[in-house]
Protein backbone atom coordinates (compact mmCIF):
# COMPACT_ATOMS: atom_id res chain seq x y z
CA UNK A 1 0.00 0.00 0.00
CA UNK A 2 1.31 3.43 -0.86
CA UNK A 3 2.42 5.55 2.09
CA UNK A 4 -0.06 8.34 2.86
CA UNK A 5 1.05 11.78 1.76
CA UNK A 6 1.90 13.99 4.73
CA UNK A 7 -0.78 16.52 3.71
CA UNK A 8 -3.49 13.85 3.83
CA UNK A 9 -6.45 14.94 5.97
CA UNK A 10 -5.48 18.62 5.97
CA UNK A 11 -8.55 19.27 3.90
CA UNK A 12 -9.46 22.88 3.13
CA UNK A 13 -13.20 22.06 3.23
CA UNK A 14 -13.41 21.01 6.90
CA UNK A 15 -12.20 22.56 10.17
CA UNK A 16 -8.94 21.05 11.30
CA UNK A 17 -9.46 18.86 14.38
CA UNK A 18 -7.11 18.95 17.35
CA UNK A 19 -4.35 16.35 17.40
CA UNK A 20 -1.37 15.22 15.37
CA UNK A 21 -1.18 15.91 11.66
CA UNK A 22 1.43 15.31 9.00
CA UNK A 23 4.59 13.25 9.37
CA UNK A 24 4.55 10.71 12.25
CA UNK A 25 7.67 12.11 13.90
CA UNK A 26 8.49 11.15 17.53
CA UNK A 27 7.73 14.69 18.68
CA UNK A 28 5.83 17.30 16.69
CA UNK A 29 8.29 19.72 15.08
CA UNK A 30 5.59 22.39 15.08
CA UNK A 31 2.96 22.91 17.77
CA UNK A 32 0.01 25.29 17.71
CA UNK A 33 -2.07 25.82 20.84
CA UNK A 34 -5.16 28.00 21.09
CA UNK A 35 -4.99 30.13 24.23
CA UNK A 36 -8.25 30.56 26.11
CA UNK A 37 -9.27 32.84 28.96
CA UNK A 38 -7.71 35.98 27.50
CA UNK A 39 -9.02 39.51 27.25
CA UNK A 40 -7.83 41.53 24.26
CA UNK A 41 -8.26 45.27 23.70
CA UNK A 42 -6.99 47.71 21.10
CA UNK A 43 -5.49 51.03 22.19
CA UNK A 44 -5.32 53.77 19.53
CA UNK A 45 -3.76 57.08 20.60
CA UNK A 46 -5.24 60.42 19.69
CA UNK A 47 -3.02 62.53 17.41
CA UNK A 48 0.26 63.25 19.21
CA UNK A 49 -0.97 61.59 22.42
CA UNK A 50 1.18 58.42 22.37
CA UNK A 51 3.50 59.73 25.16
CA UNK A 52 0.44 60.46 27.33
CA UNK A 53 -0.87 56.92 26.73
CA UNK A 54 2.52 55.43 27.65
CA UNK A 55 2.58 57.50 30.87
CA UNK A 56 -1.01 56.52 31.74
CA UNK A 57 -0.37 52.78 31.27
CA UNK A 58 2.75 53.04 33.41
CA UNK A 59 0.87 54.92 36.15
CA UNK A 60 -2.11 52.53 36.17
CA UNK A 61 -0.39 49.18 35.56
CA UNK A 62 3.30 49.75 36.35
CA UNK A 63 4.15 48.60 32.82
CA UNK A 64 6.56 50.64 30.68
CA UNK A 65 5.37 50.22 27.08
CA UNK A 66 7.15 51.54 23.99
CA UNK A 67 5.92 53.07 20.71
CA UNK A 68 7.73 50.46 18.61
CA UNK A 69 6.86 47.00 17.22
CA UNK A 70 7.76 45.31 20.52
CA UNK A 71 5.88 43.43 23.21
CA UNK A 72 6.10 44.63 26.82
CA UNK A 73 4.86 42.09 29.34
CA UNK A 74 4.20 42.68 33.02
CA UNK A 75 2.12 40.85 35.60
CA UNK A 76 -1.44 40.66 34.32
CA UNK A 77 -0.92 42.84 31.24
CA UNK A 78 0.98 42.59 27.99
CA UNK A 79 1.04 45.31 25.32
CA UNK A 80 2.06 44.65 21.72
CA UNK A 81 2.97 47.57 19.44
CA UNK A 82 0.94 47.29 16.22
CA UNK A 83 1.48 50.74 14.68
CA UNK A 84 2.48 54.29 15.61
CA UNK A 85 0.64 55.06 18.87
CA UNK A 86 -1.28 51.76 18.65
CA UNK A 87 -1.14 48.67 20.85
CA UNK A 88 -2.91 45.39 21.39
CA UNK A 89 -3.38 44.86 25.13
CA UNK A 90 -3.73 41.27 26.34
CA UNK A 91 -4.55 40.07 29.87
CA UNK A 92 -5.15 36.62 31.40
CA UNK A 93 -8.77 37.29 32.41
CA UNK A 94 -12.09 36.46 30.78
CA UNK A 95 -14.01 39.71 31.32
CA UNK A 96 -12.94 41.53 28.16
CA UNK A 97 -15.39 44.39 28.45
CA UNK A 98 -14.35 45.26 32.02
CA UNK A 99 -10.70 44.95 31.00
CA UNK A 100 -11.19 47.45 28.14
CA UNK A 101 -13.22 49.76 30.41
CA UNK A 102 -10.36 49.77 32.95
CA UNK A 103 -7.81 50.66 30.28
CA UNK A 104 -10.12 53.35 28.85
CA UNK A 105 -10.46 54.91 32.29
CA UNK A 106 -6.66 54.88 32.70
CA UNK A 107 -5.88 56.58 29.38
CA UNK A 108 -8.86 58.96 29.31
CA UNK A 109 -8.99 61.18 26.23
CA UNK A 110 -5.44 60.24 25.16
CA UNK A 111 -6.63 57.09 23.37
CA UNK A 112 -9.59 55.13 22.13
CA UNK A 113 -9.80 51.67 23.75
CA UNK A 114 -12.01 48.88 22.44
CA UNK A 115 -12.67 45.33 23.57
CA UNK A 116 -11.48 42.93 20.86
CA UNK A 117 -11.77 39.70 22.86
CA UNK A 118 -14.50 38.33 20.57
CA UNK A 119 -12.76 39.47 17.40
CA UNK A 120 -9.35 37.90 17.88
CA UNK A 121 -7.92 34.53 18.85
CA UNK A 122 -4.37 34.09 20.14
CA UNK A 123 -2.33 30.94 19.47
CA UNK A 124 0.98 29.85 20.93
CA UNK A 125 3.39 28.53 18.31
CA UNK A 126 6.38 26.43 19.31
CA UNK A 127 8.41 23.36 18.37
CA UNK A 128 11.94 22.77 17.11
CA UNK A 129 10.96 23.47 13.45
CA UNK A 130 8.57 26.36 14.00
CA UNK A 131 10.87 28.87 12.22
CA UNK A 132 11.16 26.59 9.20
CA UNK A 133 7.37 26.26 9.03
CA UNK A 134 6.76 30.00 9.46
CA UNK A 135 9.30 30.72 6.71
CA UNK A 136 6.83 29.15 4.26
CA UNK A 137 3.94 31.46 5.07
CA UNK A 138 5.47 34.63 6.48
CA UNK A 139 7.65 37.13 4.60
CA UNK A 140 9.47 38.73 7.55
CA UNK A 141 12.88 37.71 8.90
CA UNK A 142 12.44 35.74 12.15
CA UNK A 143 16.11 34.85 12.65
CA UNK A 144 17.92 36.65 15.47
CA UNK A 145 18.97 39.39 15.72
CA UNK A 146 16.25 40.57 13.27
CA UNK A 147 13.51 39.08 15.50
CA UNK A 148 14.18 38.20 19.15
CA UNK A 149 12.13 37.70 22.35
CA UNK A 150 10.18 40.94 22.73
CA UNK A 151 9.97 41.61 18.97
CA UNK A 152 6.52 42.03 17.43
CA UNK A 153 5.18 42.44 13.90
CA UNK A 154 1.87 43.20 12.23
CA UNK A 155 2.12 41.36 8.92
CA UNK A 156 0.57 38.72 6.65
CA UNK A 157 0.61 34.97 7.32
CA UNK A 158 -0.45 33.15 4.14
CA UNK A 159 -2.33 36.35 3.13
CA UNK A 160 -4.12 36.51 6.52
CA UNK A 161 -3.45 39.70 8.51
CA UNK A 162 -1.87 38.75 11.86
CA UNK A 163 0.04 40.16 14.79
CA UNK A 164 2.99 38.01 15.82
CA UNK A 165 5.30 38.41 18.79
CA UNK A 166 8.09 36.33 20.29
CA UNK A 167 7.89 35.42 23.98
CA UNK A 168 10.81 33.01 24.37
CA UNK A 169 14.20 32.32 22.85
CA UNK A 170 13.28 28.62 22.22
CA UNK A 171 11.59 30.14 20.04
CA UNK A 172 7.97 30.47 21.19
CA UNK A 173 5.65 32.92 19.44
CA UNK A 174 2.18 34.25 20.07
CA UNK A 175 0.01 34.77 17.01
CA UNK A 176 -3.12 36.92 17.05
CA UNK A 177 -5.60 36.20 14.23
CA UNK A 178 -9.06 37.52 13.42
CA UNK A 179 -11.53 34.90 14.71
CA UNK A 180 -13.19 34.29 11.33
CA UNK A 181 -9.78 33.72 9.73
CA UNK A 182 -8.40 31.26 12.28
CA UNK A 183 -9.31 28.22 10.13
CA UNK A 184 -7.34 29.62 7.19
CA UNK A 185 -4.34 30.43 9.39
CA UNK A 186 -4.50 27.06 11.17
CA UNK A 187 -4.61 25.10 7.93
CA UNK A 188 -1.79 27.16 6.42
CA UNK A 189 0.38 26.39 9.46
CA UNK A 190 -0.65 22.73 9.47
CA UNK A 191 0.37 22.38 5.82
CA UNK A 192 3.63 24.27 6.45
CA UNK A 193 4.42 22.17 9.52
CA UNK A 194 3.21 18.81 8.20
CA UNK A 195 6.61 17.59 7.03
CA UNK A 196 8.02 18.12 10.56
CA UNK A 197 4.95 16.69 12.35
CA UNK A 198 2.27 19.16 13.43
CA UNK A 199 0.25 19.17 16.64
CA UNK A 200 -2.89 21.29 17.15
CA UNK A 201 -4.25 21.83 20.66
CA UNK A 202 -7.68 23.44 21.08
CA UNK A 203 -8.68 23.45 24.73
Amino acid at each position, binding site marked *: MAKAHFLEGIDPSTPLAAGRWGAATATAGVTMRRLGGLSIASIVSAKGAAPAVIAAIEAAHGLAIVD*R*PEVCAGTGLCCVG*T*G*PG*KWLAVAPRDDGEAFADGLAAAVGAAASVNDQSDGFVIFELAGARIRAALAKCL*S*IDLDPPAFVPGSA*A*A*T*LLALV*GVTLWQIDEAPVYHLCVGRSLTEAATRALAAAGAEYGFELTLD
Partner: protein
Amino acid sequence: MLITCPYCGARDAHEFTYLGDAELIDRPDPAGPEAEAAFHAHVYLRDNPAGPHRELWYHGSGCRQWLTVTRDTRTHAIASVVAAARPEVAR
Protein backbone atom coordinates in the same frame (compact mmCIF):
# COMPACT_ATOMS: atom_id res chain seq x y z
CA MET B 1 10.36 45.26 -4.10
CA LEU B 2 10.92 45.98 -0.41
CA ILE B 3 9.64 49.14 1.27
CA THR B 4 11.32 50.00 4.56
CA CYS B 5 8.43 51.22 6.70
CA PRO B 6 9.66 53.62 9.41
CA TYR B 7 7.62 51.68 12.01
CA CYS B 8 7.71 48.05 10.79
CA GLY B 9 11.04 47.79 8.96
CA ALA B 10 11.63 46.26 5.51
CA ARG B 11 8.45 44.67 4.14
CA ASP B 12 7.36 43.16 0.86
CA ALA B 13 5.50 45.57 -1.44
CA HIS B 14 2.48 43.20 -1.32
CA GLU B 15 1.75 44.47 2.20
CA PHE B 16 1.17 47.96 0.80
CA THR B 17 -1.44 49.66 -1.36
CA TYR B 18 -0.32 52.29 -3.88
CA LEU B 19 -2.29 55.51 -4.10
CA GLY B 20 -0.21 57.69 -6.41
CA ASP B 21 1.44 61.08 -6.53
CA ALA B 22 2.24 62.53 -3.07
CA GLU B 23 1.26 65.97 -4.44
CA LEU B 24 -2.26 64.88 -3.40
CA ILE B 25 -1.31 65.86 0.17
CA ASP B 26 -1.12 69.52 -0.92
CA ARG B 27 -4.81 70.32 -1.41
CA PRO B 28 -5.30 73.77 -3.00
CA ASP B 29 -6.96 76.55 -1.03
CA PRO B 30 -10.57 76.79 -2.30
CA ALA B 31 -10.58 80.48 -1.35
CA GLY B 32 -7.24 81.15 -3.06
CA PRO B 33 -6.68 82.82 -6.44
CA GLU B 34 -7.36 80.68 -9.53
CA ALA B 35 -8.90 78.04 -7.23
CA GLU B 36 -10.81 76.33 -10.05
CA ALA B 37 -7.69 75.90 -12.17
CA ALA B 38 -5.72 74.78 -9.10
CA PHE B 39 -8.35 72.14 -8.27
CA HIS B 40 -8.45 70.96 -11.90
CA ALA B 41 -4.70 70.42 -11.73
CA HIS B 42 -4.98 68.78 -8.28
CA VAL B 43 -7.64 66.31 -9.38
CA TYR B 44 -6.62 65.54 -12.97
CA LEU B 45 -3.05 66.53 -13.81
CA ARG B 46 -0.17 64.25 -12.89
CA ASP B 47 3.48 64.31 -13.85
CA ASN B 48 4.81 61.00 -15.17
CA PRO B 49 8.51 61.28 -14.43
CA ALA B 50 11.17 58.81 -15.54
CA GLY B 51 13.18 59.03 -12.33
CA PRO B 52 12.51 59.98 -8.70
CA HIS B 53 8.81 60.19 -7.86
CA ARG B 54 7.20 61.09 -4.51
CA GLU B 55 4.22 58.83 -3.98
CA LEU B 56 1.78 57.67 -1.31
CA TRP B 57 1.70 54.07 -0.10
CA TYR B 58 -0.58 52.63 2.61
CA HIS B 59 0.85 49.90 4.84
CA GLY B 60 -2.52 48.14 5.15
CA SER B 61 -1.15 44.71 6.06
CA GLY B 62 1.22 46.12 8.65
CA CYS B 63 1.04 49.21 10.86
CA ARG B 64 -1.74 50.82 8.78
CA GLN B 65 -0.08 54.18 8.28
CA TRP B 66 0.27 56.22 5.12
CA LEU B 67 3.82 56.67 3.87
CA THR B 68 5.46 59.09 1.46
CA VAL B 69 7.90 57.05 -0.61
CA THR B 70 10.45 58.54 -3.01
CA ARG B 71 10.93 55.86 -5.69
CA ASP B 72 12.85 55.90 -8.95
CA THR B 73 10.26 54.84 -11.53
CA ARG B 74 12.99 53.35 -13.78
CA THR B 75 14.74 51.14 -11.21
CA HIS B 76 12.32 50.92 -8.23
CA ALA B 77 15.23 52.12 -6.06
CA ILE B 78 13.73 53.78 -3.01
CA ALA B 79 15.51 56.91 -1.78
CA SER B 80 13.35 57.66 1.25
CA VAL B 81 10.27 56.51 3.18
CA VAL B 82 8.63 58.78 5.74
CA ALA B 83 5.28 58.83 7.51
CA ALA B 84 2.85 60.93 5.46
CA ALA B 85 1.16 61.98 8.71
CA ARG B 86 4.18 64.07 9.70
CA PRO B 87 3.95 66.95 7.20
CA GLU B 88 7.10 68.62 8.52
CA VAL B 89 9.12 65.68 7.16
CA ALA B 90 6.73 64.19 4.58
CA ARG B 91 6.66 67.31 2.40
